[in-house]
């Protein structure tokens, strides 16, 4: 469960807020959406939740994830996964190594088993040793999602992850991501400016 | 009985110590030198000198347990600067230089600034093997040595030429001018304040002055122009006929030697009378090189080693200086296959065994005995500054 309580962000040393304070909850398995035109502070909001906020900004209010107050925690201890609009797969690793990076301290056999399992779910069986540069855009996007989820985050942030994909791929990938989130049963927060990306019946918050 | 023997030995030692304090002192010095590290700052432009110093390091290690480190320098003046800077910052102990190869201006600078340790030379047992009465050991460029440095070798301005290109080399400055007219571009000298360059100027002045004896006295600034007028006339004529029309001059004896080897120069000079011969032996000069001096003789001087005031191991430095004066070290130094720098020892003071260490040197490129005998003393040091300044004014650009 993610709870935002009067969360607002302002420039350090400046009273102006980027948007009016936000308060809402996201239940496990649910995808909430935050919408607004570009430049309204969507990505900054995600940075505040993920723990990567630049020093130029100051966040106030509360972010509570499964009873943990996030705002004072360093990024490394928040257990928040992020999907960016770029897949950000590490170019010097192959598919298996990228996925292995997200896995915790598990044995080699266990790691291999789980990687094979998730690749199969994503219809990428046998892609373990593939070089990142040799994957198609859709394949990369899927590996990127798998990687985020293998880290077992308690919350997934989606920073316009579909915007760079072409139309046909986009719908398919969207369904894949939402299904994965449902299966993991974690809350997710989607930032987008495209209504098509928002799942049916999801709560939508506009930034002002 | 044994006790009596020990007592006898004891009294013997006491009496020797009483009679010969210097020798006992020397033993003490040698004891204190054991295990010390000596940083010997010496010009390192020549690999045969460097390799000779490596040999010295091996020997003093064996004999005295001294670790000798050759600090390789390209210009002794830099080391003088460093010693001055150390003094400037109050480093009275643990200086970076323990022994320095030096003479002339650099010695005078250090001595007058009281930056030298000593007097120490009289303490060296091997100094007795030199001709201590000779002026060249008592004065370094008219500066009294006063035991503040110990002699290492003798030097004499020595000319050499490629006999494939000329038969009769010039033996007078006037002939040198003729030579330059016939063979333009084949002679040059390093620009002062380079040591070789100033020596050439002094040599030329000696020949062009009406009364060369004045050179031994302090220079008179008022009459300087009059005394040197002929010299400048000579140089005015010589310069356009020199290598690269005198617009570039070699940076030292090393480059002159290279230029002779390259065939750019036919005639050059050095300060080590045996160097042309050893360079032929070691492939740095063509076989056809011969050496000689000028008819009226050439300037000769001595090079020394000195100990800076702030050396932390003066005893060990003295032991090294003494070893440098030993017949063994001097004989190897004189050997053309090693360094080829003439011995500073007085052969008459050596015993037969010591003399046998010196192999007779025979080489076509060597200076003949009669040339070797014709030496001139260094002019009084006050001439140097005036000559350098005037030279710079006239030919600096």
């Amino acid at each position, binding site marked *: 469960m993610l709870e935002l309580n009067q969360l607002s962000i302002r420039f350090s040393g400046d009273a102006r807020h980027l948007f009016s304070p936000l308060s809402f909850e996201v239940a496990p398995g649910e995808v909430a959406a935050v919408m607004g035109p570009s430049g309204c502070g969507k990505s900054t909001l995600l940075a505040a939740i993920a723990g990567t906020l630049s020093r130029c900004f100051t966040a106030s209010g509360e972010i509570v994830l499964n009873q943990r107050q996030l705002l004072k925690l360093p990024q*490394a201890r928040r257990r928040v996964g992020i999907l960016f609009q770029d897949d950000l797969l590490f*170019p010097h690793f192959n598919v298996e190594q990228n996925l*292995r990076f997200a896995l915790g301290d598990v044995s080699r056999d266990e790691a291999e088993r789980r990687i094979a399992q998730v690749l199969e779910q994503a219809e990428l069986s046998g892609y373990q040793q593939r070089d990142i540069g040799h994957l198609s855009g859709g394949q990369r996007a899927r590996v990127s999602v798998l990687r985020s989820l293998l880290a077992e*985050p308690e919350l997934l942030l989606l920073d316009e992850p579909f915007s760079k994909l072409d139309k046909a791929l986009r719908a398919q990938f969207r369904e894949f991501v939402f299904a994965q989130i449902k299966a993991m049963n974690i809350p997710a927060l989607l930032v987008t400016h495209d209504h098509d990306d928002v799942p049916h019946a999801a709560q939508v918050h506009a930034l002002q | 009985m044994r006790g009596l023997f020990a007592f006898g030995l004891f009294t013997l030692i006491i009496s020797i110590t009483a009679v010969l304090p210097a020798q006992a002192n020397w033993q003490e010095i040698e004891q204190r030198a054991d295990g010390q590290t000596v940083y010997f700052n010496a010009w390192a432009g020549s690999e045969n000198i460097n390799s000779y110093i490596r040999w010295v390091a091996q020997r003093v290690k064996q004999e005295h347990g001294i670790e000798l480190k050759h600090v390789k320098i390209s210009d002794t003046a830099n080391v003088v600067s460093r010693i001055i800077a150390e003094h400037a910052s109050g480093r009275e102990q643990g200086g970076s230089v323990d022994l320095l190869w030096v003479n002339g201006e*650099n010695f005078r*600078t250090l001595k007058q600034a009281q930056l030298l340790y000593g007097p120490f030379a009289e303490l060296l047992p091997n100094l007795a093997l030199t001709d201590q009465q000779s002026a060249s050991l008592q004065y370094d460029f008219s500066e009294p040595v006063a035991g503040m440095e110990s002699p290492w070798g003798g030097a004499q301005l020595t000319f050499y030429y490629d006999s494939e290109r000329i038969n009769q080399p010039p033996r007078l400055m006037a002939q040198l001018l003729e030579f330059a007219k016939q063979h333009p571009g084949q002679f040059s000298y390093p620009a002062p304040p380079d040591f070789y360059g100033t020596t050439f100027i002094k040599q030329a002045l000696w020949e062009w002055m009406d009364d060369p004896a004045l050179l031994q006295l302090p220079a008179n600034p008022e009459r300087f122009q009059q005394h040197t007028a002929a010299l400048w006339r000579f140089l005015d004529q010589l310069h356009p006929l020199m290598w690269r*029309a005198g617009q570039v001059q070699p940076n030292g004896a090393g480059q002159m030697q290279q230029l002779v080897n390259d*065939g750019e120069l036919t005639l050059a000079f050095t300060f080590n009378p045996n160097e042309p011969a050893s360079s032929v032996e070691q492939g740095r000069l*063509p076989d056809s090189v011969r050496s000689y001096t000028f008819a009226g003789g050439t300037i000769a001087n001595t090079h020394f080693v000195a100990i800076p005031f702030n050396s932390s191991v003066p005893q060990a430095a003295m032991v090294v200086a003494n070893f440098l004066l030993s017949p063994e070290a001097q004989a190897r130094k004189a050997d053309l296959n090693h360094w080829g720098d003439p011995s500073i020892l007085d052969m008459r003071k050596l015993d037969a065994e010591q003399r046998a260490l010196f192999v007779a040197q025979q080489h076509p490129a060597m200076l003949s005995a009669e040339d070797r005998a014709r030496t001139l003393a260094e002019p009084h040091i006050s001439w140097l500054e005036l000559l350098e300044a005037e030279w710079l004014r006239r030919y*600096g650009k």
Partner: protein
Amino acid sequence: MTRIDGRWLGVFPALTLLVMLVPLLSGLWYTLLPSFGYLPSLGFEQWSLQAWQALFAHPLTLQASGLSVLSGVLSSGLALISALYVLSHCYHRASWRWLQRAFAPMLAVPHVALAIGLVFLLAPSGWVLRSLSPWLTGFSYPPLWQSVQDPYGLSLVLALWLKELPFLLFMLAVAAGQLPLNASLAVGQSLGYSRAQVWWRVIIPQLLPRVRLPMLAVLAFACSVVDVAQVIGPTKPPTLAVLVWQWFSHSDVSFRLMGAAGALWLLALIGSVLLVYLWLERHYLRWSLDWQLNGRRHRPRSDKPAGLLVAAAMLLAGLAMVVMLIWSFAWRWRFPDMLPQTWQLGTWQQAAEFAYSPFSQSLLLALSSVLLSLLLCIGCLEYELHSDRARALRWSKLFYLPLLVPQVAFLFGLQVQLLKWQLDGRWLGVIWAHTVFVLPYVFLSLADNYRGFDQRYMQAAVSLNHRPLLSFVQIKLAMLAKPIAVAIAVGFSVSIAQYLPTLFIGAGRFSTLTTEAVALASGGDRRITAVMVILQSLLPLLVFSLAQLTTPKRVFKPFSWTFHVRT
């Protein structure tokens, strides 16, 4: 790496500024005092303007100043123009990869080695004329030419140009990598301009501000270099830097006051040259705007002249190296033979006897100063990410100061300072002195690539494995492996080439390949000089080739070790 643990990184810029500025400022201070007659240790305690008067009354000062400025400006200007020209024709073309590989060794070879090699090559008795004589030229003895050490300093300009061209090309390529080049070229060419025209009208105006610092460093270096000018520069008069150096090392210590004044005069001259360059750079855009927008289209011009220029530069540098190699195996080699009459291995054997210690000392000095510099640079660049970017950029400019101030202007003063702290002649002092010159180059070659790193990779990594430090090493450093390796190589060759700092601060007790090479070059044996120069070039060449081979994948084999490290 995250907001909360980023604050301590402020240590790095503070430490770096300390490391860079303390030696520089204290060195300048102890140069300033003597120039006004105050050097109490030598008995000069009277404040006066005498040193300055003597400086300007000295017959050589003005001409030497002119030579310094002229040779510096000419070589740097030519290097910049030819680098831009080559870039506009070759960048990202088929020849570019080849060109990058070929220029890397030239970047690595120490300046003085190249200068010595050029003299071997171009002197009237050099290899070029040996090869052409007597069959073509008729010379059986070297002619009376002034092809090196000419009074106008043209051979000096050539040597400097040859060394600066690859450096500027390298810096320009790094800067160009930060621009949307392909898009600009595509748009420009679709509008009917030739590729080179797009470069000159669109890209180069954007590049110039980005290579401002390297260009200033090149200008300052070329105007103030001592060792190269000693080898291949004019002697009557020499350049001002050499003249000042001679005064500093004159055995008559009163010359030191004039030396101090001369060093500051050189500093002032270089300062004006740099200001003029900045002014020109700023106004170039305005002046060239009309021309940029005049709408004229050219058909693409041939790339051949650019290729020829590069080929000529490389041929010259290559031959200079080859002729040194030949000399090192020669016994006797007289004019006009094209090759030595007799060969030998003796010089190399001789070198083997003593080269170990200078070799290892060079290596150790270079490694320690480069690693120290790298640590500080990476720390500073990380700090930038966590602080106000604009402010960080402003103070990081201070790192470059040691490159803009002539070495002769502060090394003597620095020596006095280090003596006071008992740091001269010690490892720490010498490593420090090297770092002062290595760090700016490491920063220069690393900063653009480092700043260009997409920090979201780090955010993704930390969100995945929750270990900032491990992610930093495995992801950020690994992905930046190539630029880091190149920065190491650049820093390494800078350290290897240091002559004055090693000599001054090391109290002569540190013999490196460079100090040995310069000491031997003052002697008469070209063969041993050649050996030392080859050895001196070999180390940086080796490191540069390693850097060329570096890729993130090679550096990093993830399953071999990293994933099983528990933190």
